[in-house]
Each structure stands twice: as C-alpha cells, then as structure tokens.
C-alpha cells in the first residue's frame, strides 16, 4: 500500500509540470512568430483583400463607386492592357527559357575540374547581379541609344550598315529589354545550377562515358534530370520576376514606343499615378497578374512532372 501511495503522489507532479511546460512552450512559440505574422498580414494579405474590393469599384481619385464586374469586362476591350499583357507574355516565353539555357550552358562549362581561372570566370559572369535594376537600366539605355556605343561597335565590325533603332522601333525595343534582363539575371541563375552540379556525383558521368555517351547525351540524360528541381525553382522565380517587370522598362523605354514595351506592372503604375488615378481599375489589372502568377506556377509544376521536384 505504502509504495503505491507514494507512486500516486509522485506521478501527477511531472505530468502537471509537463502540461504547464507544453502550454507555456506553445505560447512562447507563437510569441516568436507573432511580429512577423502580423507584419505579413498587415502589408500583404490585408492589402490584397483591399485590392480585391477595389477591383469592383471605379472612379477618379477617392471618388469610388461599386461597378460590379465592369472593370473585369473592361480588361478585354482595353487596348493598353492587351498590349501590356502581350508584351509581358512575350518577355516571359522568350527571355526566361533563353536565360535558363545560357545559365545551364555556362554552369556546365564552369563545372569542369581541369578549368583554370574558374573563380574569375564565375565572379565575372555573376557580377551583373550586384547592380541595381535602375542603375543598369540607365546604363543599357545609353549603351543601346541610336548613336550609342553598341551601334558604333556593330557598324565598326560591319555587322550592320546603319544604326539599329534599339529603343524607338517596336520590335528592337522589346529585343533590348530582353537582352538587358538576360544580362542582369543569367549569372544569378548560373550560380544556382553550378552549386547543384557540384553535388552531382562525378562517377555518374564516368559511367556514362564508358557506356559511350557523348557530351550532348550526358547533358540531356544526366545533367538536366539531375538539376530538374533547381531548374523548376529558378524558372518559377524568374516567371514571377518577369510578370512583375517594372524597373527596366520604366528606365529604358518608359514603355514606348507607343505601348510597344509596356508591362502590366507599369500599366498599373500609369493608371494609378500617371493618368487621372483610377485605383479601382488599376486594382483589377493587378489581379490579372496575380491570376497569371498562379496559373504559370501551376503549369510549371505540372510540366516538371513528378513529385520529387
């Protein structure tokens, strides 16, 4: 009897302590994450709800009225929005794949064990990433000016006979934007691939070589599948980045000539702060980007296929 009582007397104590400890621990955990959670709700989720409400309103400045789905219907007949959408999609489907291919190609070249000056090449190709978007955009604007150094150099080596209208021709202006973004971000993606490649066991390549696989087969059959998760990651971040493109276009072409290079972000900016402000319609346009980001992310996950990605 006596031992049993003692046992009973002892047992509740640690349990009580445990419960108290767990509850206290739980609360402390929530305290740790509270500031960040509040801040994200305040500066991301609350504005998103506001934007959704705004997207059903229209009017100049603060004089807003509910208009139902009118704003959403207006999107389909708004030539400026359609131009912005078209441009953004063009940047996306040309620039992102081109950049990823370049980045993969360079990282494979750099992943050569016998390569000397590896650090130098890597640093040099990564260097564009340290520039601010505005700063490099202004530099590119002048590099690609009609009387700029790029045209002068192309004429000097007789690649072209007269200057290309890099900034004022609707086609070439888009090309300039794509060149600029590719210059800025290829090195960034290259670093990701390079570090992933360094984790790939070299003996796989040795085995492939013995089996008679050439460089191309090695690239497509080993490198690409091994890097699939990281390629997916970079293509999603690049897609989100491209859909939000603003700084470059604003500072290189201002969206011109006409609306030939305007992006959705810039159109939202114009609607809200350049023209007579129509915050309601601008919010509707912004939801178009949100929908596109969600759709493209889902597509990329589907294309990438299996779950281990």
């Amino acid at each position, binding site marked *: 009897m006596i031992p049993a009582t003692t046992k009973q007397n002892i047992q509740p104590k640690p349990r009580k302590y445990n419960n108290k400890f767990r509850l206290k*621990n*739980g609360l*402390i*955990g*929530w305290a*740790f*994450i509270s*500031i*960040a*959670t509040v801040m994200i709700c305040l*500066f*991301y989720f*609350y*504005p998103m709800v*506001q*934007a959704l409400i*705004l997207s059903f309103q229209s009017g100049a400045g603060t004089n807003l009225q509910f208009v139902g789905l009118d704003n959403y219907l207006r999107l389909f007949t708004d030539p400026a929005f359609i131009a912005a959408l078209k441009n953004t999609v063009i940047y996306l489907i040309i620039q992102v794949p081109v950049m990823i291919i370049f980045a993969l190609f360079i990282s494979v070249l750099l992943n*050569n064990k016998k*390569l000397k000056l590896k650090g130098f090449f890597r640093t*040099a*190709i990564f*260097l*564009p990433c*340290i*520039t*601010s*978007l*505005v*700063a*490099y*955009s*202004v*530099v590119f604007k*002048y*590099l690609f000016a009609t*009387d700029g*150094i790029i045209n*002068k150099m192309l004429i000097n080596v007789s690649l072209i006979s007269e200057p290309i209208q890099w900034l004022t021709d609707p086609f070439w202006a888009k090309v300039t934007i794509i060149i600029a973004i590719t*210059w800025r971000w290829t*090195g960034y993606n290259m*670093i*990701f691939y390079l570090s992933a490649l360094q984790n790939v066991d070299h003996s796989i390549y040795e085995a492939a070589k013995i089996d008679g696989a050439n460089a191309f087969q090695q690239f497509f059959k080993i490198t690409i599948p091994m890097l699939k998760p990281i390629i997916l*990651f970079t293509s999603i971040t690049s897609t*989100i980045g491209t*859909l*939000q493109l*603003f*700084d470059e276009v*604003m*500072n290189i072409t201002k969206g011109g000539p006409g609306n030939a290079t305007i992006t959705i*972000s810039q159109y*939202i900016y114009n609607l*809200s*702060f350049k023209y007579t402000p129509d*915050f309601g319609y601008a919010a509707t346009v*912004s939801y178009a*980007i*949100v929908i596109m*980001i969600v759709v493209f*992310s889902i597509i990329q996950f589907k294309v990438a296929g299996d779950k281990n990605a």
Partner: protein
Amino acid sequence: MHKIKQIFIYILLSIFTVISIFPFIWMIISATNKSIDVTKGRLLPGTHLVENIQNLLSTVDLVPALINSATISIATTILSLIIASLAGYGFEIYRSKAKDVVFNILLLSMMIPFAALMIPLFRMFGTISQIAPGIGIDTLTSAMLPSITTAFLIFFFRQNTKMFPRELLEAGRIDGLTELGVFFRIYVPTMKTTYAAAAIITFMASWNNYLWPLVVLQSPENHTIPLLISNLGSSNSPDFGIIMTSIVIATLPTALIFFLLQRHFVAGMMGSVK
C-alpha cells in the same frame, strides 16, 4: 582533340565574361569622361572624374539621397533580421501542426506581385498620414515599412535553423536561460553566417528598391539613390559624365559588399534553396 575542346571552353567563357563586364567598364570609363566624349564613343579613361563629381554635387542632391538610402537600408536590414530570425526560429524550434499551417500561408505572400499591393498600400499610408503624419506618405518610414518583413527571409532563417544543434538549446535551458535568452545568447551568436548572408540579401534589396519609394516618396528631399538616378537618366539633355558618375557611386556600396563578403553572399543565395 582534348586540347581543342579545352581551348574552345576558354574562348566561350571569355566571350561571356566580356559581355558581363563590358557595361561596367563602359560605365566606369564614361564616369571619367566629358559628356561629349561619351557620345562620340570614347572607350579610353579620361581625366574628368573630379569635374564630373563636382558637377554632380552641384546639380543634384546626391549626399541627401545617399543618406536617405543608407538610413532606409540599414534600418530595414536590422529590423528585418530581428523579425525574420525570431519567426524562423519560432517556426522550427517550437514546431507544431498549427504553426506549419501559418507558415505555409505566410509563404503564399511570396507569390503576391508588388504591383498588386502598391495601390492599397498607398491608400493605407494616405489614411495613416491623417493620423500620424510622421509615418505617413512621403516619409522614410513609409518607404521601408512594407518591405521589412518578407516571407522569403523567414523561410531562409527557418531552413538554416534546421542545422542549428538542439543540444545547445537544452544546455542553455539547463543553465537557466529564458527562452528569449536562449535565442539571443546562444542562437544569434551561433548563426552568425546566416545573419551575414541575410543582411547582405536584405541590404541589397533595400538599397536598390525602386517602385515603392517612387510611389511614396514625393518630395525631392526624401528621394533615394535609385530615384535620383532614374530622374537623371530620364532628363531631356542628359550629361553622360554626371549620370555615369552617379551610377558608379550608387553601385560602389553593393560592389564593396560583394567583394568583401563574397562567400557569405553566395552562401546566402544558396542557403535559400537547400
């Protein structure tokens, strides 16, 4: 055959290197030349750097813009690091199902484009202006508040906390430290590398931030460096010497950080996808 292949690799890499570096070289060379020489396509260093700097200082408010940018970037970096590391630590160390749900919801904010937040935020700060003008529209505080907390940085700290040895935590608790004490006395000093990488990422993003400051900072005395460069670049009669000098000056801090802390810099980027 092997030799030829090697040479070919060097040639290709050299081409990519030249393309990557050329705009920098042109920008630095142009900063030392007169505007007219830049237009003529001069590719040799000149002797007008000092003159360009003097002209720059006399035509635009470079120093106030540098101070504004530095104030915003440093304050943002410090606050970001504290808030995000507390959260990243909280999510990983006090892990629970409910917190994981909250974490995943927070991650969704990474998908939200800033353009969609811009208008509601602008209106929000407009309302704040009427109550507390000190943090409303056209103040440095309003320029930094929305970018202080990012889901990315919380994610980054959480990922790195996974490698934090739990024994240290227990040891601290046994020594009688409070939970917050464990965080500040043990976690923070142990995770120096993570903090360095996070600081670099945040500082760079803040120093280069353009769209939100463009929207919210209206008076010229509040302008930051990207706004100043953008204004210089869009002038109708651009002075290339001055513009390139201002760009070189604006790029110097980030370039310094990159070259001095290259290891942390790359580690920071990589850590985010481990």
